């Protein structure tokens, strides 16, 4: 695909997406994940809504699932049991736990108070982010450590995007080898795979037409652009950022 073709994908009626000489890839604010302003792009009849989603806190729990003291500690701490079935999730009151590996989980907490990106321009950073509750984190880590486990703060490691709409699974299937049939990948399940060449953690929401895709921060701009390219033939809307919710 030529650069001109890449540009064309974002070149919309409004001409806002990809208006710069470098095309919209060059115009992206690096370090942030957003492509550009909210709007409608690609072919007519937007089949998908793409949006950045902000992660409040993300902690990687590791430990031996056969150790009751460890799993009990984790359940007490996060308000939900660690999911032991591969690629499943559990939910607590304000948190969700995703299975990452036989001894590894991702705890996502939803802090309603955490500010999100500017609604008028998803490329802009969160206006001001509260300091990490590091004392709370350290206490959790020490408590898990005492039970033979471990806790790593990976809040900033990943950036999340949501894809919603009848073509969401199709757009992912352009780049991801997973089987997105709801019988193979049911709602509220998660899976790790590749989106293009980029490692991704994918969560299918209870709304089976909605996915959250989490990728490494340094590759987020690249991944976002790849999703935009893959969405061009169905057409897509870019919505403002909102807090990531694992429901």
């Amino acid at each position, binding site marked *: 695909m030529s650069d001109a073709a890449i540009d064309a994908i974002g070149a919309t009626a409004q001409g806002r997406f990809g208006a710069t000489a470098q095309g919209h890839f060059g115009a992206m604010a690096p370090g942030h994940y957003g492509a550009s302003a909210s709007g409608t792009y690609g072919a007519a009849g937007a089949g998908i809504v793409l949006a950045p989603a902000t992660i409040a806190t993300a902690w990687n729990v590791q430990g031996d699932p056969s150790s009751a003291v460890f799993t009990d500690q984790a359940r007490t701490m996060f308000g939900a049991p660690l999911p032991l079935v591969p690629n499943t999730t559990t939910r607590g009151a304000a948190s969700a736990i995703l299975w990452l*590996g036989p001894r590894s989980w991702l705890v996502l907490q939803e802090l309603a108070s955490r500010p999100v990106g500017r609604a008028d321009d998803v490329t802009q950073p969160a206006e001001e982010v509260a300091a990490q509750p590091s004392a709370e984190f350290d206490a959790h880590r020490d408590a898990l450590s005492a039970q033979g486990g471990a806790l790593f703060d990976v809040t900033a490691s990943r950036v999340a995007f949501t894809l919603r709409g009848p073509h969401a699974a199709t757009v992912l299937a352009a780049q991801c080898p997973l089987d997105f049939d709801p019988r193979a990948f049911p709602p509220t399940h998660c899976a790790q795979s590749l989106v293009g060449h980029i490692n991704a953690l994918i969560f299918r929401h209870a709304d089976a037409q909605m996915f959250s895709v989490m990728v490494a921060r340094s590759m987020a701009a690249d991944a976002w652009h790849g999703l935009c390219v893959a969405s061009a033939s169905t057409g897509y809307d870019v919505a403002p950022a909102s807090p990531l919710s694992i429901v």
Partner: protein
Amino acid sequence: MLLIPCPYCGPRNQVEFTYGGDATVRRPANDAPQAQWFDYIYVRDNPCGPHDEWWQHSAGCRSWLRVRRDTRTHDILGSARVDDPLGDDR
């Protein structure tokens, strides 16, 4: 493109995996004599037929796995967790 059954995640595309070498050789004890380490590092078979290999589900659950692959046909014959040997039914 191979389809490799991850014992945790189910059948997954080869692109999610990283090859990790021969799983039939046993790493010597740390204090084993140099000659034994030499054999381990340099003396490898090139078998024709079913062969056990290490693969890591690197873009998935990051588990290292034993995968039995037929070197003649490229067929994947089975896989197992690290602590779960693949049986000797070859």
